[in-house]
Protein backbone atom coordinates (compact mmCIF):
# COMPACT_ATOMS: atom_id res chain seq x y z
CA UNK A 1 0.00 0.00 0.00
CA UNK A 2 2.78 2.36 0.96
CA UNK A 3 4.55 1.60 -2.27
CA UNK A 4 1.38 2.17 -4.23
CA UNK A 5 1.08 5.65 -2.71
CA UNK A 6 4.72 6.41 -3.44
CA UNK A 7 4.28 5.30 -7.03
CA UNK A 8 1.19 7.45 -7.32
CA UNK A 9 3.18 10.40 -5.98
CA UNK A 10 5.68 9.86 -8.78
CA UNK A 11 3.04 9.76 -11.48
CA UNK A 12 0.91 12.58 -10.14
CA UNK A 13 3.17 15.55 -11.04
CA UNK A 14 3.59 14.24 -14.57
CA UNK A 15 -0.14 13.91 -15.03
CA UNK A 16 -0.85 17.32 -13.54
CA UNK A 17 1.74 19.01 -15.74
CA UNK A 18 0.48 17.29 -18.85
CA UNK A 19 -3.16 18.00 -18.02
CA UNK A 20 -2.49 21.70 -17.36
CA UNK A 21 -0.51 22.04 -20.56
CA UNK A 22 -3.14 20.33 -22.66
CA UNK A 23 -5.96 22.29 -21.01
CA UNK A 24 -4.32 25.71 -21.31
CA UNK A 25 -2.08 25.23 -24.33
CA UNK A 26 -4.21 22.86 -26.37
CA UNK A 27 -6.37 25.61 -27.92
CA UNK A 28 -3.20 27.35 -29.21
CA UNK A 29 -2.10 24.35 -31.26
CA UNK A 30 -2.90 24.55 -34.93
CA UNK A 31 -1.10 24.07 -38.24
CA UNK A 32 -0.61 27.81 -38.36
CA UNK A 33 0.93 27.79 -34.87
CA UNK A 34 3.39 25.05 -35.79
CA UNK A 35 4.35 26.24 -39.26
CA UNK A 36 4.18 30.02 -39.08
CA UNK A 37 6.66 32.68 -37.96
CA UNK A 38 6.02 34.65 -34.78
CA UNK A 39 4.31 37.94 -35.54
CA UNK A 40 3.43 41.26 -33.85
CA UNK A 41 6.36 41.28 -31.46
CA UNK A 42 5.91 37.58 -30.67
CA UNK A 43 2.41 38.13 -29.29
CA UNK A 44 0.83 36.25 -32.17
CA UNK A 45 1.69 33.86 -34.97
CA UNK A 46 3.58 30.58 -34.74
CA UNK A 47 6.81 28.96 -33.60
CA UNK A 48 8.22 27.39 -36.76
CA UNK A 49 11.72 28.96 -36.62
CA UNK A 50 12.13 27.89 -32.99
CA UNK A 51 10.93 24.38 -33.76
CA UNK A 52 13.39 23.97 -36.62
CA UNK A 53 16.16 25.61 -34.57
CA UNK A 54 15.74 23.16 -31.72
CA UNK A 55 15.91 20.22 -34.11
CA UNK A 56 19.16 21.62 -35.55
CA UNK A 57 20.67 22.16 -32.12
CA UNK A 58 19.78 18.68 -30.88
CA UNK A 59 20.87 16.96 -34.07
CA UNK A 60 24.27 18.61 -34.22
CA UNK A 61 24.82 18.06 -30.49
CA UNK A 62 24.00 14.36 -30.90
CA UNK A 63 26.31 14.04 -33.91
CA UNK A 64 29.15 15.24 -31.71
CA UNK A 65 28.41 13.70 -28.34
CA UNK A 66 27.20 10.20 -29.28
CA UNK A 67 30.28 9.06 -31.24
CA UNK A 68 32.58 10.78 -28.77
CA UNK A 69 30.77 9.47 -25.70
CA UNK A 70 30.46 5.89 -26.95
CA UNK A 71 34.12 5.84 -27.97
CA UNK A 72 35.15 7.21 -24.58
CA UNK A 73 33.04 4.63 -22.76
CA UNK A 74 34.44 1.83 -24.92
CA UNK A 75 37.94 2.92 -24.07
CA UNK A 76 37.23 3.25 -20.36
CA UNK A 77 35.38 -0.04 -20.09
CA UNK A 78 37.30 -2.29 -22.49
CA UNK A 79 40.79 -0.91 -22.97
CA UNK A 80 41.86 1.38 -20.15
CA UNK A 81 44.13 -0.14 -17.52
CA UNK A 82 43.00 0.42 -13.94
CA UNK A 83 45.46 3.11 -12.90
CA UNK A 84 45.43 6.61 -11.47
CA UNK A 85 44.95 8.18 -14.86
CA UNK A 86 41.79 6.16 -15.60
CA UNK A 87 40.43 6.93 -12.16
CA UNK A 88 41.19 10.60 -12.79
CA UNK A 89 39.24 10.51 -16.05
CA UNK A 90 36.29 8.89 -14.26
CA UNK A 91 36.39 11.58 -11.62
CA UNK A 92 36.37 14.24 -14.34
CA UNK A 93 33.31 12.69 -15.96
CA UNK A 94 31.41 12.71 -12.67
CA UNK A 95 32.40 16.30 -12.10
CA UNK A 96 31.46 17.29 -15.63
CA UNK A 97 27.96 15.97 -14.93
CA UNK A 98 27.78 18.17 -11.84
CA UNK A 99 28.76 21.45 -13.46
CA UNK A 100 25.77 23.85 -13.52
CA UNK A 101 24.47 24.51 -17.01
CA UNK A 102 25.06 28.25 -16.78
CA UNK A 103 28.74 27.55 -16.21
CA UNK A 104 28.76 25.38 -19.30
CA UNK A 105 27.20 28.33 -21.11
CA UNK A 106 30.02 30.64 -20.08
CA UNK A 107 32.56 27.98 -21.02
CA UNK A 108 30.88 27.70 -24.41
CA UNK A 109 31.14 31.43 -24.93
CA UNK A 110 34.79 31.44 -24.00
CA UNK A 111 35.80 28.34 -25.91
CA UNK A 112 33.60 28.02 -28.97
CA UNK A 113 32.23 31.50 -29.60
CA UNK A 114 35.41 33.44 -28.89
CA UNK A 115 38.47 31.19 -28.88
CA UNK A 116 37.55 28.97 -31.84
CA UNK A 117 35.81 31.90 -33.49
CA UNK A 118 32.57 30.11 -34.34
CA UNK A 119 30.67 33.22 -33.22
CA UNK A 120 27.20 32.84 -31.77
CA UNK A 121 26.06 30.01 -33.97
CA UNK A 122 24.33 26.65 -33.97
CA UNK A 123 27.76 25.03 -33.97
CA UNK A 124 28.90 26.81 -30.82
CA UNK A 125 25.59 26.16 -29.05
CA UNK A 126 25.50 22.49 -30.06
CA UNK A 127 29.08 21.91 -28.99
CA UNK A 128 28.24 23.42 -25.61
CA UNK A 129 25.22 21.15 -25.33
CA UNK A 130 27.31 18.19 -26.42
CA UNK A 131 29.91 18.76 -23.73
CA UNK A 132 27.23 19.18 -21.14
CA UNK A 133 25.47 15.94 -22.02
CA UNK A 134 28.60 13.90 -22.70
CA UNK A 135 28.65 12.41 -19.17
CA UNK A 136 25.15 11.02 -19.64
CA UNK A 137 26.19 9.14 -22.77
CA UNK A 138 29.49 7.97 -21.30
CA UNK A 139 28.03 6.73 -18.03
CA UNK A 140 25.06 4.98 -19.66
CA UNK A 141 27.27 3.36 -22.28
CA UNK A 142 29.91 2.28 -19.80
CA UNK A 143 27.32 0.75 -17.54
CA UNK A 144 25.68 -1.21 -20.32
CA UNK A 145 29.08 -2.41 -21.55
CA UNK A 146 30.00 -3.59 -18.09
CA UNK A 147 26.68 -5.37 -17.74
CA UNK A 148 27.76 -7.81 -20.47
CA UNK A 149 28.78 -10.92 -18.51
CA UNK A 150 32.47 -11.70 -18.21
CA UNK A 151 31.69 -15.28 -19.26
CA UNK A 152 30.75 -14.08 -22.75
CA UNK A 153 34.03 -12.23 -23.11
CA UNK A 154 36.04 -15.15 -21.78
CA UNK A 155 34.29 -17.49 -24.18
CA UNK A 156 35.27 -15.15 -26.97
CA UNK A 157 38.89 -14.64 -25.93
CA UNK A 158 39.31 -18.36 -25.58
CA UNK A 159 38.36 -18.95 -29.13
CA UNK A 160 41.14 -16.59 -30.13
CA UNK A 161 39.05 -13.48 -30.69
CA UNK A 162 40.98 -10.24 -30.62
CA UNK A 163 39.82 -7.51 -28.31
CA UNK A 164 38.10 -5.72 -31.14
CA UNK A 165 36.36 -8.86 -32.42
CA UNK A 166 35.06 -9.47 -28.91
CA UNK A 167 33.71 -5.94 -28.68
CA UNK A 168 32.28 -5.94 -32.15
CA UNK A 169 30.65 -9.37 -32.10
CA UNK A 170 29.62 -9.89 -28.51
CA UNK A 171 29.88 -6.83 -26.30
CA UNK A 172 28.33 -4.12 -28.48
CA UNK A 173 25.35 -6.12 -29.74
CA UNK A 174 24.48 -6.91 -26.15
CA UNK A 175 24.96 -3.34 -24.94
CA UNK A 176 23.21 -1.44 -27.70
CA UNK A 177 19.86 -1.12 -25.96
CA UNK A 178 21.53 0.35 -22.90
CA UNK A 179 23.46 2.79 -25.04
CA UNK A 180 20.24 3.91 -26.68
CA UNK A 181 18.75 4.56 -23.24
CA UNK A 182 21.60 6.96 -22.64
CA UNK A 183 20.94 8.67 -25.93
CA UNK A 184 17.24 9.02 -25.07
CA UNK A 185 18.13 10.72 -21.81
CA UNK A 186 20.52 12.97 -23.64
CA UNK A 187 17.97 13.99 -26.26
CA UNK A 188 15.45 14.90 -23.58
CA UNK A 189 17.98 16.94 -21.68
CA UNK A 190 19.35 18.68 -24.76
CA UNK A 191 15.93 19.64 -26.08
CA UNK A 192 14.96 21.38 -22.90
CA UNK A 193 18.21 23.16 -21.99
CA UNK A 194 18.06 26.93 -22.12
CA UNK A 195 21.06 28.40 -20.35
CA UNK A 196 23.85 26.85 -22.45
CA UNK A 197 22.38 28.05 -25.73
CA UNK A 198 21.36 31.48 -24.55
CA UNK A 199 24.80 33.04 -24.99
CA UNK A 200 26.21 30.71 -27.57
CA UNK A 201 23.80 30.49 -30.47
CA UNK A 202 20.13 30.95 -29.73
CA UNK A 203 18.56 34.24 -30.75
CA UNK A 204 15.85 36.24 -29.03
CA UNK A 205 13.90 36.83 -32.18
CA UNK A 206 14.99 35.74 -35.66
CA UNK A 207 12.20 34.88 -38.02
CA UNK A 208 14.42 33.10 -40.56
CA UNK A 209 15.38 29.48 -40.81
CA UNK A 210 19.06 28.67 -40.32
CA UNK A 211 20.85 27.59 -43.48
CA UNK A 212 24.09 26.28 -41.96
CA UNK A 213 25.63 25.47 -38.60
CA UNK A 214 27.24 28.92 -38.56
CA UNK A 215 23.89 30.69 -38.40
CA UNK A 216 22.15 31.78 -35.28
CA UNK A 217 18.76 30.31 -34.63
CA UNK A 218 15.71 30.51 -32.44
CA UNK A 219 15.06 27.63 -30.09
CA UNK A 220 11.94 26.37 -28.35
CA UNK A 221 13.24 26.55 -24.82
CA UNK A 222 14.60 30.07 -25.14
CA UNK A 223 11.47 31.18 -26.99
CA UNK A 224 9.37 29.93 -24.11
CA UNK A 225 11.50 31.86 -21.65
CA UNK A 226 11.32 35.01 -23.77
CA UNK A 227 7.57 35.10 -24.35
CA UNK A 228 6.85 34.14 -20.75
CA UNK A 229 8.99 36.80 -19.08
CA UNK A 230 10.48 39.29 -21.50
CA UNK A 231 7.67 40.35 -23.82
CA UNK A 232 4.63 42.25 -22.52
CA UNK A 233 1.17 41.50 -23.78
CA UNK A 234 1.58 37.89 -24.84
CA UNK A 235 -1.79 36.10 -24.69
CA UNK A 236 -1.88 33.40 -22.03
CA UNK A 237 -2.34 30.43 -24.32
CA UNK A 238 0.85 31.07 -26.34
CA UNK A 239 3.51 30.10 -23.73
CA UNK A 240 1.43 27.06 -22.75
CA UNK A 241 1.21 26.10 -26.41
CA UNK A 242 5.00 26.36 -26.77
CA UNK A 243 5.51 24.31 -23.63
CA UNK A 244 3.09 21.68 -24.90
CA UNK A 245 4.92 21.38 -28.21
CA UNK A 246 8.29 21.22 -26.44
CA UNK A 247 7.15 18.41 -24.17
CA UNK A 248 5.48 16.62 -27.08
CA UNK A 249 8.80 16.75 -28.98
CA UNK A 250 10.68 15.20 -26.09
CA UNK A 251 8.06 12.52 -25.56
CA UNK A 252 7.92 11.71 -29.27
CA UNK A 253 11.68 11.33 -29.48
CA UNK A 254 11.67 9.18 -26.36
CA UNK A 255 8.94 7.01 -27.79
CA UNK A 256 10.84 6.66 -31.06
CA UNK A 257 14.01 5.66 -29.24
CA UNK A 258 12.15 3.20 -27.05
CA UNK A 259 10.57 1.71 -30.15
CA UNK A 260 13.95 1.38 -31.80
CA UNK A 261 15.34 -0.22 -28.68
CA UNK A 262 12.56 -2.76 -28.52
CA UNK A 263 13.05 -3.51 -32.20
CA UNK A 264 16.78 -4.08 -31.73
CA UNK A 265 16.20 -6.20 -28.69
CA UNK A 266 13.72 -8.34 -30.55
CA UNK A 267 15.99 -8.67 -33.56
CA UNK A 268 19.05 -9.89 -31.75
CA UNK A 269 18.68 -13.50 -30.89
CA UNK A 270 19.60 -13.04 -27.26
Amino acid at each position, binding site marked *: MLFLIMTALLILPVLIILATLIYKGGPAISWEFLFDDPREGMTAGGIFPALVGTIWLVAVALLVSVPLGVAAALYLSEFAPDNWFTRFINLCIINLAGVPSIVHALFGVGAFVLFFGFGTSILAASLTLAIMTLPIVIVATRESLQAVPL*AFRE*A*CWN*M*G*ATRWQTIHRVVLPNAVSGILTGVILEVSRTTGETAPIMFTGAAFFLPFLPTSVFDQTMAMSLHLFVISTQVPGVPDHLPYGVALVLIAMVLTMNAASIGLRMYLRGKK*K*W
Partner: protein
Amino acid sequence: MHEPIMNETRAANGGNGHDAIFTRDLNLWYGDFQALFDVNLAIKDGMITSLIGPSGCGKTTFLRSINRINERLGYVRTEGSILVFDTDIYGGEVELAQVRKQIGMVFQRPNPLPISISDNVLFGFQLHGEGRTRMHKSEKEEIVEAALKQVLLWDTVKDRLDSKATELSLEEQQKLCIARLLPVKPTILLMDEPCSALDPKGTEAVEELIWELRGDYTIVIVTHNMAQARRASEECIFMLMGKVVEHTATEDMFVTPAKKETADYIEGRYG
Protein backbone atom coordinates in the same frame (compact mmCIF):
# COMPACT_ATOMS: atom_id res chain seq x y z
CA MET B 1 51.00 -18.36 -39.96
CA HIS B 2 52.34 -20.23 -36.97
CA GLU B 3 49.74 -22.88 -36.97
CA PRO B 4 51.12 -24.82 -39.95
CA ILE B 5 54.52 -24.88 -38.29
CA MET B 6 52.98 -26.33 -35.16
CA ASN B 7 51.12 -28.94 -37.14
CA GLU B 8 54.21 -30.01 -39.02
CA THR B 9 55.99 -30.44 -35.74
CA ARG B 10 53.10 -32.52 -34.53
CA ALA B 11 53.34 -34.72 -37.62
CA ALA B 12 57.10 -35.02 -37.24
CA ASN B 13 56.66 -36.14 -33.67
CA GLY B 14 54.35 -38.84 -34.89
CA GLY B 15 51.48 -38.21 -32.51
CA ASN B 16 51.25 -40.24 -29.32
CA GLY B 17 54.08 -40.57 -26.93
CA HIS B 18 55.57 -37.12 -27.47
CA ASP B 19 55.21 -33.97 -25.51
CA ALA B 20 52.32 -31.71 -26.39
CA ILE B 21 53.06 -29.27 -23.61
CA PHE B 22 56.47 -28.82 -22.12
CA THR B 23 57.24 -26.26 -19.44
CA ARG B 24 60.61 -25.16 -18.24
CA ASP B 25 61.06 -23.38 -14.89
CA LEU B 26 57.64 -21.80 -15.07
CA ASN B 27 57.14 -19.19 -12.34
CA LEU B 28 54.09 -17.01 -12.09
CA TRP B 29 53.16 -14.07 -9.88
CA TYR B 30 49.85 -12.33 -9.24
CA GLY B 31 51.25 -8.99 -8.20
CA ASP B 32 53.51 -9.89 -5.26
CA PHE B 33 51.97 -13.29 -4.69
CA GLN B 34 53.82 -16.16 -6.30
CA ALA B 35 51.35 -18.77 -7.52
CA LEU B 36 53.63 -21.14 -9.44
CA PHE B 37 57.16 -22.26 -8.44
CA ASP B 38 59.53 -23.76 -11.01
CA VAL B 39 56.96 -25.89 -12.75
CA ASN B 40 58.67 -28.39 -15.05
CA LEU B 41 56.18 -30.61 -16.80
CA ALA B 42 55.96 -32.69 -19.93
CA ILE B 43 52.40 -33.48 -20.90
CA LYS B 44 52.09 -36.21 -23.49
CA ASP B 45 50.40 -35.80 -26.83
CA GLY B 46 47.01 -37.43 -27.28
CA MET B 47 46.56 -38.32 -23.63
CA ILE B 48 44.23 -37.20 -20.93
CA THR B 49 46.21 -35.72 -18.08
CA SER B 50 44.46 -34.68 -14.91
CA LEU B 51 45.67 -32.02 -12.53
CA ILE B 52 44.72 -32.54 -8.90
CA GLY B 53 45.50 -30.78 -5.68
CA PRO B 54 43.83 -28.76 -2.93
CA SER B 55 42.20 -25.38 -3.63
CA GLY B 56 44.72 -22.67 -4.31
CA CYS B 57 47.50 -25.07 -5.26
CA GLY B 58 47.92 -23.41 -8.65
CA LYS B 59 46.36 -26.02 -10.89
CA THR B 60 43.88 -23.63 -12.49
CA THR B 61 46.56 -20.96 -12.75
CA PHE B 62 48.80 -23.41 -14.57
CA LEU B 63 45.97 -24.37 -16.90
CA ARG B 64 45.15 -20.77 -17.65
CA SER B 65 48.73 -19.91 -18.42
CA ILE B 66 48.85 -22.56 -21.16
CA ASN B 67 46.54 -20.55 -23.39
CA ARG B 68 47.72 -17.22 -22.00
CA ILE B 69 44.30 -16.26 -20.68
CA ASN B 70 45.88 -15.11 -17.40
CA GLU B 71 47.40 -12.14 -19.16
CA ARG B 72 44.02 -10.46 -19.32
CA LEU B 73 44.25 -9.76 -15.63
CA GLY B 74 47.07 -7.33 -16.28
CA TYR B 75 48.97 -7.81 -13.01
CA VAL B 76 50.26 -11.27 -13.86
CA ARG B 77 53.97 -11.84 -14.45
CA THR B 78 55.27 -15.04 -15.99
CA GLU B 79 58.84 -16.32 -16.16
CA GLY B 80 60.17 -19.45 -17.78
CA SER B 81 58.76 -20.98 -20.91
CA ILE B 82 55.88 -23.08 -22.11
CA LEU B 83 56.46 -25.02 -25.31
CA VAL B 84 53.43 -26.27 -27.17
CA PHE B 85 54.58 -28.70 -29.84
CA ASP B 86 58.03 -27.17 -29.60
CA THR B 87 56.85 -23.59 -30.10
CA ASP B 88 57.36 -21.20 -27.20
CA ILE B 89 53.91 -19.68 -26.83
CA TYR B 90 55.31 -16.77 -24.83
CA GLY B 91 57.80 -16.10 -27.61
CA GLY B 92 57.70 -12.68 -29.23
CA GLU B 93 56.83 -13.86 -32.71
CA VAL B 94 53.83 -15.95 -31.68
CA GLU B 95 50.37 -14.56 -32.38
CA LEU B 96 48.02 -14.80 -29.43
CA ALA B 97 45.04 -15.57 -31.64
CA GLN B 98 46.88 -18.57 -33.08
CA VAL B 99 47.79 -19.83 -29.61
CA ARG B 100 44.17 -19.66 -28.53
CA LYS B 101 42.99 -21.28 -31.73
CA GLN B 102 45.38 -24.17 -31.15
CA ILE B 103 44.46 -24.51 -27.49
CA GLY B 104 40.79 -24.58 -26.60
CA MET B 105 39.47 -24.10 -23.08
CA VAL B 106 36.37 -25.33 -21.29
CA PHE B 107 35.28 -23.60 -18.10
CA GLN B 108 33.73 -24.64 -14.82
CA ARG B 109 30.40 -23.13 -15.66
CA PRO B 110 29.28 -23.72 -19.23
CA ASN B 111 29.44 -20.37 -21.02
CA PRO B 112 27.64 -20.66 -24.33
CA LEU B 113 27.07 -17.33 -26.03
CA PRO B 114 23.42 -16.29 -25.99
CA ILE B 115 22.97 -16.98 -29.67
CA SER B 116 21.64 -20.04 -31.49
CA ILE B 117 23.18 -23.48 -31.10
CA SER B 118 24.58 -23.54 -34.62
CA ASP B 119 25.91 -19.97 -34.34
CA ASN B 120 27.76 -21.03 -31.20
CA VAL B 121 29.43 -23.87 -33.02
CA LEU B 122 30.34 -21.61 -35.94
CA PHE B 123 31.45 -18.66 -33.81
CA GLY B 124 35.11 -19.51 -33.45
CA PHE B 125 35.33 -20.76 -36.99
CA GLN B 126 33.95 -17.54 -38.40
CA LEU B 127 36.23 -15.54 -36.14
CA HIS B 128 39.24 -17.05 -37.81
CA GLY B 129 37.73 -17.28 -41.27
CA GLU B 130 37.28 -13.53 -41.52
CA GLY B 131 38.40 -11.91 -44.73
CA ARG B 132 37.78 -14.92 -46.91
CA THR B 133 34.77 -15.43 -49.13
CA ARG B 134 31.44 -16.25 -47.55
CA MET B 135 30.78 -19.82 -46.63
CA HIS B 136 28.06 -21.79 -48.29
CA LYS B 137 25.11 -22.75 -46.18
CA SER B 138 25.78 -26.43 -46.75
CA GLU B 139 29.38 -26.00 -45.66
CA LYS B 140 28.22 -24.40 -42.41
CA GLU B 141 25.73 -27.19 -41.83
CA GLU B 142 28.43 -29.78 -42.31
CA ILE B 143 30.71 -28.12 -39.78
CA VAL B 144 27.91 -27.85 -37.23
CA GLU B 145 26.85 -31.45 -37.73
CA ALA B 146 30.38 -32.82 -37.52
CA ALA B 147 31.20 -30.89 -34.34
CA LEU B 148 27.94 -31.79 -32.61
CA LYS B 149 28.30 -35.43 -33.57
CA GLN B 150 31.77 -35.48 -32.13
CA VAL B 151 30.47 -34.32 -28.75
CA LEU B 152 27.54 -36.76 -28.86
CA LEU B 153 25.03 -33.93 -28.93
CA TRP B 154 23.77 -34.13 -32.49
CA ASP B 155 20.84 -36.47 -31.87
CA THR B 156 19.43 -34.38 -29.04
CA VAL B 157 19.65 -30.99 -30.75
CA LYS B 158 19.48 -31.66 -34.48
CA ASP B 159 15.87 -30.46 -34.71
CA ARG B 160 16.44 -27.20 -32.88
CA LEU B 161 19.75 -25.86 -34.11
CA ASP B 162 18.27 -22.37 -34.33
CA SER B 163 17.04 -22.18 -30.75
CA LYS B 164 19.08 -20.37 -28.14
CA ALA B 165 22.03 -22.21 -26.68
CA THR B 166 21.26 -20.81 -23.23
CA GLU B 167 18.01 -22.81 -23.17
CA LEU B 168 19.85 -26.14 -23.17
CA SER B 169 20.46 -28.12 -19.99
CA LEU B 170 23.81 -27.54 -18.27
CA GLU B 171 25.15 -30.86 -19.49
CA GLU B 172 24.17 -30.02 -23.07
CA GLN B 173 25.62 -26.52 -22.71
CA GLN B 174 28.94 -27.92 -21.56
CA LYS B 175 29.02 -30.33 -24.50
CA LEU B 176 28.23 -27.44 -26.80
CA CYS B 177 31.11 -25.46 -25.29
CA ILE B 178 33.39 -28.33 -26.22
CA ALA B 179 31.82 -28.62 -29.67
CA ARG B 180 32.43 -25.01 -30.56
CA LEU B 181 36.17 -25.43 -30.01
CA LEU B 182 36.43 -28.23 -32.56
CA PRO B 183 35.78 -26.52 -35.91
CA VAL B 184 39.03 -24.51 -35.66
CA LYS B 185 40.91 -27.80 -35.22
CA PRO B 186 42.67 -27.31 -31.91
CA THR B 187 45.32 -29.79 -30.78
CA ILE B 188 44.94 -29.25 -27.07
CA LEU B 189 41.81 -28.97 -24.93
CA LEU B 190 42.10 -27.48 -21.48
CA MET B 191 39.27 -28.20 -19.07
CA ASP B 192 38.85 -26.38 -15.79
CA GLU B 193 36.65 -28.60 -13.62
CA PRO B 194 34.30 -29.19 -16.54
CA CYS B 195 31.82 -31.23 -14.53
CA SER B 196 31.63 -29.31 -11.28
CA ALA B 197 28.41 -27.52 -12.27
CA LEU B 198 26.74 -30.71 -13.47
CA ASP B 199 24.63 -33.37 -11.77
CA PRO B 200 25.95 -36.95 -11.54
CA LYS B 201 24.25 -38.00 -14.77
CA GLY B 202 25.64 -34.99 -16.62
CA THR B 203 29.06 -35.62 -15.14
CA GLU B 204 29.00 -39.17 -16.39
CA ALA B 205 27.95 -38.08 -19.87
CA VAL B 206 30.66 -35.41 -20.12
CA GLU B 207 33.31 -37.77 -18.76
CA GLU B 208 32.29 -40.30 -21.36
CA LEU B 209 32.66 -37.62 -24.03
CA ILE B 210 36.12 -36.61 -22.78
CA TRP B 211 37.16 -40.23 -22.92
CA GLU B 212 35.88 -40.39 -26.53
CA LEU B 213 38.02 -37.42 -27.54
CA ARG B 214 41.19 -39.03 -26.18
CA GLY B 215 43.75 -39.64 -28.88
CA ASP B 216 42.39 -36.94 -31.20
CA TYR B 217 43.28 -34.21 -28.76
CA THR B 218 45.65 -33.70 -25.90
CA ILE B 219 43.39 -33.06 -22.93
CA VAL B 220 44.40 -31.46 -19.65
CA ILE B 221 41.68 -31.54 -17.04
CA VAL B 222 41.68 -29.84 -13.67
CA THR B 223 39.51 -31.57 -11.14
CA HIS B 224 38.64 -31.56 -7.48
CA ASN B 225 37.06 -34.92 -7.79
CA MET B 226 39.56 -37.66 -7.05
CA ALA B 227 37.31 -40.39 -8.39
CA GLN B 228 36.99 -38.47 -11.61
CA ALA B 229 40.74 -38.12 -12.00
CA ARG B 230 41.08 -41.81 -11.44
CA ARG B 231 38.31 -42.78 -13.84
CA ALA B 232 38.88 -40.32 -16.61
CA SER B 233 42.61 -39.74 -17.02
CA GLU B 234 45.68 -41.62 -18.11
CA GLU B 235 48.28 -39.51 -16.40
CA CYS B 236 47.93 -37.52 -13.25
CA ILE B 237 49.74 -34.51 -11.84
CA PHE B 238 49.53 -33.65 -8.16
CA MET B 239 50.24 -30.04 -7.22
CA LEU B 240 50.63 -28.45 -3.82
CA MET B 241 51.33 -24.81 -2.92
CA GLY B 242 52.26 -23.91 -6.50
CA LYS B 243 54.69 -26.77 -6.94
CA VAL B 244 54.43 -30.02 -8.83
CA VAL B 245 54.75 -32.86 -6.34
CA GLU B 246 54.21 -35.86 -8.51
CA HIS B 247 53.48 -36.69 -12.14
CA THR B 248 52.90 -40.33 -13.07
CA ALA B 249 50.45 -42.66 -14.73
CA THR B 250 47.08 -42.29 -13.02
CA GLU B 251 46.87 -45.90 -11.83
CA ASP B 252 50.31 -45.65 -10.21
CA MET B 253 49.47 -42.44 -8.42
CA PHE B 254 46.33 -43.83 -6.86
CA VAL B 255 47.77 -47.20 -6.01
CA THR B 256 51.37 -46.51 -5.10
CA PRO B 257 51.97 -42.77 -4.69
CA ALA B 258 55.67 -41.98 -4.46
CA LYS B 259 55.44 -38.97 -2.15
CA LYS B 260 53.92 -38.73 1.29
CA GLU B 261 52.00 -35.53 0.42
CA THR B 262 50.33 -37.26 -2.51
CA ALA B 263 49.28 -40.17 -0.37
CA ASP B 264 47.91 -37.84 2.29
CA TYR B 265 45.89 -35.87 -0.24
CA ILE B 266 44.52 -38.90 -1.99
CA GLU B 267 43.45 -40.40 1.30
CA GLY B 268 41.65 -37.18 2.10
CA ARG B 269 43.81 -35.90 4.94
CA TYR B 270 43.62 -32.38 3.55
CA GLY B 271 42.11 -30.56 0.62
